[in-house]
């Protein structure tokens, strides 16, 4: 069945009331029955939940084949915990038919690809899917199609019982002996533990894995001991150098800076740019550099940013310290400046993934956003964005908070170069729709700006500010005139991944790619 972004969704996936994507805010006002975990009473006072090994903790939690294990990705490319747990479950306990429900998976988790090929891991639910895992899933080696969700879609699915977590694993930079966890104070700090919070509340069992045991009570706790079954101390939970880069540097690339300046110009031309406005930006080159130019306009007009959310990095912390933004609410940290600031700098708070972006709760932060500045791998003439599949059709990206912030914000700006190497970023049809075009408002490229025809009000703002803009078709033709018109990718029938819209409808599917012949 064709959905609202023109993607053909196989009928076989539309079971149990599952629908295809119908457009933004389609589920508004519906009621959901929240799921509740099945948890153990720990009534007898105990001195400690310390458990000698991951294997023992797994046994204590009744780990068995067929279960779903959850993980969070704050340790990013430095994470050791996913591999440690899966190795113990599969090689020590001999478990099989496992499903991994992670907030994101990356190159650090290449060993999981081996377990997929052996048939020990049969399900993957994630936002990010990259590296060897992306390759083996794209090659059709995973037994069930991977389910890809946004950062807001995941807590929605967990709370609504669509994902039932048997055991959640918390990679904790610090924990006390009862399982109160924080993302700071240890040797492998990651700052916010926002993505782990929903998992800990909705999982039947919770195992904390830490490399820095601290005195009880470890407060204020991001994950609370009341939800934790076991605490395991290991040598290291991750490679701290890969957890957060020293500092997310502002790009010096003149092309990035030109685009960033245009993003700031567009923002300054719209009516939401007034004292107390709210903002999120990605950490990609031009998105991050937009901060710099925006500050100039804020000074000129003598206005301040009310609050900022998202993945947080140094430049935003700087604005907070300078008093140019009132509050920063943080679901994940991208660099050490962010890590070292959360809960330390006044006004820098932590939030859960649900609080950040869940479309099914009653007050996610994204819904109050004025602006979001985001990157794209591809954007098509319907303003649909792809941030998941490469030009060769292989899974190598992550929707992350992209669809959530795009849908929630009043003005969603995509900033991307027109071409990357030989790839046309602005194209006729994106390989995979990860953010639907009805959520995207303005496109800024190095060859020009385009406004979504659904937003004549924004086009009028740009005209009033004498900011030139063209149609997105013109940008696409310009791109094709430089790189040539690409051949269509060829696919097998097999669906290897299902891409859920943030509301739980099906936005797109990824099929097995046919090799070039």
């Amino acid at each position, binding site marked *: 069945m064709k959905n609202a972004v023109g993607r053909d969704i196989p009928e076989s996936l539309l079971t149990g009331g599952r629908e295809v994507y119908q457009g933004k805010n389609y589920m508004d006002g519906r009621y959901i029955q929240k799921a509740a975990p099945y948890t153990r009473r720990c009534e007898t006072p105990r001195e400690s939940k310390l458990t000698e090994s991951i294997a023992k903790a797994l046994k204590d939690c009744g780990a068995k084949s067929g279960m779903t294990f959850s993980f969070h990705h704050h340790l990013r490319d430095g994470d050791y915990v996913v591999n440690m747990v899966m190795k113990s479950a599969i090689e020590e306990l001999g478990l099989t038919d496992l499903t991994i429900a992670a907030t994101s998976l990356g190159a650090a988790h290449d060993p999981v690809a081996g377990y997929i090929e052996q048939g020990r891991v049969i399900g993957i639910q994630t936002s990010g899917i990259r590296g060897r895992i992306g390759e083996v899933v794209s090659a059709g080696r995973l037994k069930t199609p991977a389910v890809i969700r946004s950062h807001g879609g995941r807590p929605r699915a967990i709370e609504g019982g669509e994902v039932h977590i048997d055991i959640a694993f918390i990679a904790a930079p610090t924990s006390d002996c009862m399982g109160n966890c924080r993302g700071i104070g240890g040797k492998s700090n990651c700052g916010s533990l926002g993505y782990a919070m929903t998992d800990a509340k909705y999982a039947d069992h919770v195992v904390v894995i830490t490399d820095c045991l601290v005195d009880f009570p470890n407060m204020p706790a991001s994950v609370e001991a009341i939800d934790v079954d076991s605490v395991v101390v290991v040598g290291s939970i991750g490679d701290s150098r890969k957890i957060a880069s020293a500092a997310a540097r502002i790009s010096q690339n003149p092309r990035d800076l030109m685009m960033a300046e245009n993003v700031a110009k567009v923002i300054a031309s719209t009516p939401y740019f007034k004292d107390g406005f709210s903002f999120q930006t990605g950490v990609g080159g031009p998105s991050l550099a937009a901060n710099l130019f925006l500050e100039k306009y804020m000074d000129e007009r003598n206005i301040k940013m009310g609050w900022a959310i998202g993945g947080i990095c140094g430049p935003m912390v700087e604005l907070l310290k300078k008093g140019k933004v009132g509050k920063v609410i943080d679901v994940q940290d991208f660099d050490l400046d962010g890590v070292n600031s959360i809960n330390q700098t006044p006004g820098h708070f932590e939030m859960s993934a649900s609080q950040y972006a869940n479309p099914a709760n009653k007050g996610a932060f994204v819904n109050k956003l004025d602006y979001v500045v985001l990157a794209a791998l591809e954007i098509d003439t319907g303003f649909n964005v792809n941030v998941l599949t490469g*030009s*060769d*059709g292989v899974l190598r990206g992550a929707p992350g908070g992209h669809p959530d912030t795009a849908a929630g914000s009043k003005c969603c700006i995509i900033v991307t170069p027109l071409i*990357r*190497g*030989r*790839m046309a970023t602005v194209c006729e049809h994106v390989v995979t729709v990860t953010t639907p075009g009805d959520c995207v408002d303005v496109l800024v490229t190095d060859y020009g700006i385009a406004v979504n025809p659904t937003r004549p009000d924004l086009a009028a703002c740009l005209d009033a500010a004498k900011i030139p803009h063209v149609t997105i078709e013109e940008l696409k033709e310009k791109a094709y005139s*430089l*790189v*040539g018109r*690409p*051949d269509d*990718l*060829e696919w097998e029938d097999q669906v290897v991944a299902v891409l859920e819209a943030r509301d739980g409808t099906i936005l797109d599917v990824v099929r097995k*790619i046919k090799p*070039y012949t």
Partner: protein
Amino acid sequence: MEILKPAVAGTLESSDAQVTVEPGSQGIELALTSSVMNQYGRQIKATVLETLKRLDVSNAKVTVIDKGALDCTLKARVECAVFRSCGASGGNIPWGGAVR
């Protein structure tokens, strides 16, 4: 032109292509790998063959390792590799003639 000795042009940087030509006797034997094979493999092949034809090269082993080069880059790398293989890259390049 006749390929007299092996010659290379281009790099493995992103947006470039490395073209190697070697003497051959069985027509054009093209080995192509590309980071954008699925979407541009056909066009890259056509561009390389067309450029060789324009230079009147009919026997050669040609290896192209493409890293997302535009057509103009591909043509330039093929031309340069062929001229180098004939020892003809030092001067008197037929700009606007066989090389355009």
